[in-house]
């Protein structure tokens, strides 16, 4: 993969100012994504993963500002292009599917009109051509009786079907990058598998690049070539999916994996270990390792210095002061 990456992000920061003060939820996120590659971004709510994507899409909430050393997609500098150009890039370059297909499709518009509008808006042409395209895409995502579905409203479809409609909408204008923000979280487990298979299939057939965001490393492991684990607004570990999931280098990655049944890190897979505590609020003094309060290996150094992003192997990095064999488990604290 020596070609220029499709997406390049260097040192992205997002800050939010409100009445309560200043929050700094994304702090220097960098990654590359090549055409046809799937990057899984993992992390709990509040880790900054969603805001990173919203920054990419120009959809940050009011009061939030971003700065980045570099943010390019397909040759275009996302930090410099105007609103009109950014709009054109949506759907035709980057298409997004969201977590909850119940609320993400407009309840008062029919499936057909939702899909057609995206096509007409970016590709123009006749309504008839747009309808034909909509039917084609609905079939593509495995929806039977596609032509009949056009006249239905979102609420008339099941959750799984709605997410397929969402994916069909994403494909309307042949994007190069598909961002899937927790695409299966709101769905039943059986339906989840179908959606993940579909995404896998589409990527292979269409050569899509995918950013798959999930708190579930199991879901990410299914599809991703590479993984980036986020915590406290930073990437704490990134590397080839297989390596990271089999031999996690960062204590947080390991802790996340311990929460999933059937993962290799769990010696007796029946026993799952929750991560104590909660994700901190990203304001005030943010020096040192953000995970230290919840980390069973934390030392005084974790408070004193920011851990560097250490190279484990050529494309594998971990943001921890200690390598796995250097760690000492903290003496057991008496619970408060």
């Amino acid at each position, binding site marked *: 993969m020596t070609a220029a990456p499709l997406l390049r992000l260097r040192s992205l920061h997002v800050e939010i100012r409100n009445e309560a003060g200043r929050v700094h939820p994304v702090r220097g996120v960098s990654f590359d994504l090549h055409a046809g590659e799937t990057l899984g971004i993992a992390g709990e709510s509040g880790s900054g993963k969603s805001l990173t994507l919203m920054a990419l899409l120009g959809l940050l909430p009011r009061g939030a500002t971003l700065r980045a050393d570099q943010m390019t997609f397909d040759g275009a500098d996302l930090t410099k292009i105007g609103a009109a150009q950014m709009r054109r890039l*949506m759907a035709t370059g980057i298409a997004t599917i*969201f977590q909850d297909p119940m609320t993400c499709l407009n*309840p*008062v518009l029919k499936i057909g009109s939702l899909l057609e509008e995206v096509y007409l*808006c970016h590709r123009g042409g006749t309504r008839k051509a747009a309808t034909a395209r909509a039917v084609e895409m609905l079939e593509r995502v495995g929806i039977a009786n596609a032509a009949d579905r056009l006249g239905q409203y979102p609420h008339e479809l099941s959750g799984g079907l709605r997410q397929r409609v969402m994916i069909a909408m994403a494909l309307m204008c042949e994007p190069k990058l598909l961002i899937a923000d927790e695409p299966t979280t709101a769905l039943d487990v059986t339906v989840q598998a179908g959606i993940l298979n579909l995404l896998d299939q589409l990527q292979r057939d269409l050569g899509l690049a995918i950013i798959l965001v999930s708190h579930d490393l199991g879901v990410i492991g299914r599809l991703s070539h590479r993984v980036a684990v986020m915590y406290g607004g930073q990437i704490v570990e990134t590397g080839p999916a297989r390596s990271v999931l089999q031999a996690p280098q960062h204590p947080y990655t390991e802790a996340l994996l311990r929460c999933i049944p059937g993962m290799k890190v769990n010696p007796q897979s029946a026993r799952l270990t929750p991560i104590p505590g909660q994700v901190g609020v990203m304001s005030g003094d943010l020096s040192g390792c953000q995970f230290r309060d919840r980390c069973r290996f934390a030392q005084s150094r974790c408070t004193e210095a920011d851990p560097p992003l250490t190279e484990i192997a050529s494309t594998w990095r971990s943001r921890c002061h200690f390598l796995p064999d250097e760690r000492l488990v903290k003496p057991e604290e008496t619970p408060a």
Partner: protein
Amino acid sequence: MLRYVIRRFLLALLTLITVSALAFFMTWLSGDPALAIAGDTASAEDIAAVRDHYGLDRPIVAQYFSWAGRALRGDFGVSYHFDLPVSEMLATRLPVTMTLGAASILFALALAIPLGVLAAVYNNTIIDRAALTIAVLGQAIPTFWFALMMMILFGITLRWLPISGGGSWAHYVMPTIALGYFATPVLMRLTRAGMLEALESDYIRTARAYGLPIRSILFRHALRNALIPVVALAAVQFGFMLGGSIVIETVFSLPGIGWLGYDAILRGDLPVVQAILLVVAGFYVILTFLADLLNAALDPRMRSAG
């Protein structure tokens, strides 16, 4: 959907029956009607004669049923004062009130929806405050005072519009503004709230993530959702305007049922008061029923729900 319609219809019917009873009995609370008809100077015999003539000596419940039975057939009795069938009087007056009500609600919507959208889009800015101020003034200013001020400015000083009567469309302009302006704040605030909610919603985020033009996002995606409750409220407000027209019609001497009702109350003309109460309340109930149906027609989610 059919079950929904039937249930709503039965509810409306029940309300109507209750309202008719209230309309009938409440007018009795204002005093002895026989006394009002015969006048202050009437002797005891005169009053007794009046009571006998109009059947006012029968048990009140029996009177209600015979009145309600006749009302069902469109017979509201005869006016004590004009000695004319009440239904005929209503037939000539009702179109005036309906025209005023319809024009007022359209005026209110034409003012409230753009203001509401503007306020939501520029939420918490000067524009939002200004839109809210314009709208809220409508409710803060007493209607009759606002009407009088308009009369002074446009009727007397500028001589643009007639200040009383109902002969031409020009006679309706000021009453429409006065009545419509009063209904604007509620509609505007509901539009604003609906737009704010819609603009924060996930489906608007989707529309933005797909690069749809702002015009489509605001009007096709957001406003359509935001207007569902507004339409229903407008229908109810229309009913409210028929009642509210009592003040406006009286101030502008517009010969609708509002003015008629006002006069009838002063004269103790019971059959007219009862008929107007029933008709206005009836419209109100019917409009609320229609608003429910309209809501269902506009919101696809309600159409398939029980």
